[in-house]
């Protein structure tokens, strides 16, 4: 998928460029088209189940094409392009190699930016209320009063376990949704997603919102219990 729909003039020789990053006429490095996304940058369709080995191989191959190390003696413009392209590639790889960030990014593409929230999972209201009481309680107990701390810590540990289980459940749900997404028919190029695709994204978004909330809670529990325990 080296070809993109965006044609543009070569900055160096002026002939028409329809390749992602190279001019077929004078062979100079071209700026990646401004409107491309991370998927296109790494030569991927809008799929959520990705072969990580193949992704890494693409990343390495493109790194060899873009990295500033190889443009040290080129013109200032080509050096600048190499820097921008490499920065784009590095961000793209970092985002897409992580299954969760990959979904978040896809949702961002479909809906525009910053639409992700955190949301309390409605089935966990009671547990969260209990947890907050325990967290308040442990703040009041002196750090060296092990006898008084023990029961509170035990209840925090139980909560931690429960929330972790809930997060694992979210993870499975997310994977299933990602699998479902990949079976849906849709445009791979211009981001005009079908209603069915959008519905799938909305479901994933809800799970992600829970997940983000649980992340924060687990973090807080970890801090309250203290490191190493």
């Amino acid at each position, binding site marked *: 998928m080296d070809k993109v729909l965006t044609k543009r003039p070569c900055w160096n020789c002026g002939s028409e460029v329809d390749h992602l990053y190279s001019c077929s006429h004078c062979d100079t490095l071209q700026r990646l088209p401004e409107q491309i996304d991370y998927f296109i940058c790494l030569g991927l369709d809008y799929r959520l189940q990705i072969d990580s080995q193949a992704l890494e191989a693409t990343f390495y191959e493109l790194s060899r094409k873009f*990295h500033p190390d190889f443009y040290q003696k080129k013109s200032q413009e080509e050096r600048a392009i190499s820097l921008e392209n*490499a*920065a*784009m590639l590095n*961000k793209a790889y970092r985002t897409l190699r992580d299954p969760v960030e990959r979904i978040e990014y896809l949702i961002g593409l479909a809906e525009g930016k910053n639409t992700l929230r955190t949301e309390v999972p409605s089935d966990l209201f009671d547990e969260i209320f209990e947890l907050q009481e325990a967290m308040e309680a442990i703040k009041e107990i002196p750090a060296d009063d092990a006898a008084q701390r023990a029961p509170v810590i035990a209840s925090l540990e139980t909560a931690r376990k429960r929330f972790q289980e809930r997060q694992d459940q979210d993870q499975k749900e997310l994977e299933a949704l990602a699998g479902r997404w990949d079976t849906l028919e849709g445009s791979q190029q211009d981001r005009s997603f079908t209603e069915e695709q959008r519905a799938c994204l909305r479901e994933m978004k809800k799970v992600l919102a829970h997940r983000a909330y649980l992340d924060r809670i687990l973090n807080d529990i970890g801090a309250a219990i203290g490191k190493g325990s």
Partner: protein
Amino acid sequence: MAKVVGIDLGTTNSLVAYMDGNTPRVIRDAEGGGLVPSIVAFNRESDSEGVIVGEAAKKQLLTHSDRTIYSVKRFMGKGVEDVRDDLSLIPFHLAEGQKEVVRIQIGNKLYTPPEISAFILRELKQRAEAFLNEPVRQAVITVPAYFNDSQRQATKDAGKIAGLEVLRIVNEPTAASLAYGLQKKKEGTIVVYDLGGGTFDVSILKIKNGIFEVLSTNGNTHLGGDDIDRRLMRLILDEILQKYQVDLSQTPEALQEVRLVSEKVKIRLSSDEKAEIGLSFPGRKVEYRREIKREEFEALIKELVGQTIEPCRQALEDARLKPEGIDEVILVGGSTRIPLVKETVAAFFKKTPHSELNPDEVVALGAAVQADILAGGITHMLLLDVTPLSLGIETMGGVVSRLIQRNATIPTSAKEMFTTFVDGQKSVSIHVVQGERELVKDCRSLAKFNLTGIDPLPAGMPRIEVTFLIDANGILNVTAKDLRGGKMQSVEVKPTYGLTDHEVESMISASIEHAREDLSERMLIESRNEAETVLRHVEKAMTQGAGLLEEPEKKEVDQRLADLRAAMQGKDHNAIREKLDRLDKATQRLAELLMNRSIKEALENKKLSDL
């Protein structure tokens, strides 16, 4: 093709290396030593004339402690507040009232750490030029992976002041991995544990198909061999205080002697089970002598060595790895010779670390490899490094808005939109910080970037897109674009703990002027030496050939001799040259006459048959 050299600018020692075909080599002096002690000594005039660097400067540590600067790397990119804890144990003076950049006071002159480092770099540059027999203009310089933006920028500034184009700032552990990879040609996931004189770094890399991908890095830029020495120093100073009621910490020379002894004892204890400490200050009636066992030393430094483990744990976590996922651990830096360090590392990573590469030289060798990659020599190897610290900007209420996460592969960038709050506002200030904490006050302030020349419009109307780009050196570049007009917006940089471009420029021109002074100094010495040789010859000739010259000719020569002697008292090498030329002309006839006479004598002493 001019060579690009690789420089390891270390806390304790520095080295320069180059690529000899396919092999990186350290450039050594006549005695075979590659290490140049990172010590700069100033002479009494406290001027950059007569500055000495390296072994010679090390000799001055004890005699001129307040004018002999060591471990300057610890001050790079730092403000005075940052180094307050160090002050009690260093014998040279930091200027007060200089908040943003540490300044070291030598006589009545102030030097910034980049200027001191530039003296070391210049020494290395000269060493390389003498060895390679060609001018050296470009270099790759290594820094600790955990160096922040200010510390990297300070290193780059030092290079500039020394007259070097710094093609790349490369991280020490990654440089080491390049040298290691080139030599071993192995693939896998490796940990580089680098405990040097002043800094600690740990980097985790994946080596595959010639790509060296850094997965994570962590460290502590204020933890190293110096701190280990200090633990011993404290012990010795305290014991002397108790036993003799003498506080040596107030005397720079004594302090320096205690430091050097501590360093020696530490090194000894890496190979021996015990070592002798002996210090004598007869003037203060101190005769301190004691034995120290390795066990006792280890108890003293156990906590320090332990401090390296948390960064290792964090690096593993950031790389999403467990110790079992690591194929090899490589030790770099002189402090990894300490047995306790080796044991601690082995226990944490659950494998015996590698130490067959010379831990003092491997970083410089790697820098030479990176230099060769940049020069277009090696094409199959590529280093993909990361930024060690997250980057963010200050938002309302002193909270950090994070733009780039730590361990992001560099180069990397982030874009952010800015606008105005007041009608007609013409400039916007952006405060950039580095660190992992949520509040600005807990992070490291890097710089304030001022977007100026904004068209005066109602509040909120201007739309300025600011790009924060961290380049392959790990250094931040900020550019801004006015999205309404599409033109680039000018950005003024005010570094918090660094030198402005203007300051660096003036330091460069000062050093060029000094270089000129240095040059004329050398020409003066050379012309004086030559004049002395000529004087001796002419005086000898005049006694030998006294009878051969007419009286006016003799007078003329005497006059010229007197002129030359007078010129030699002055400092103008051109004047000496001129008088030398005149003397030469005045003595030409004498030389001819002497020559003729000696030929005649030679002929007279020989028989015709010999001719």
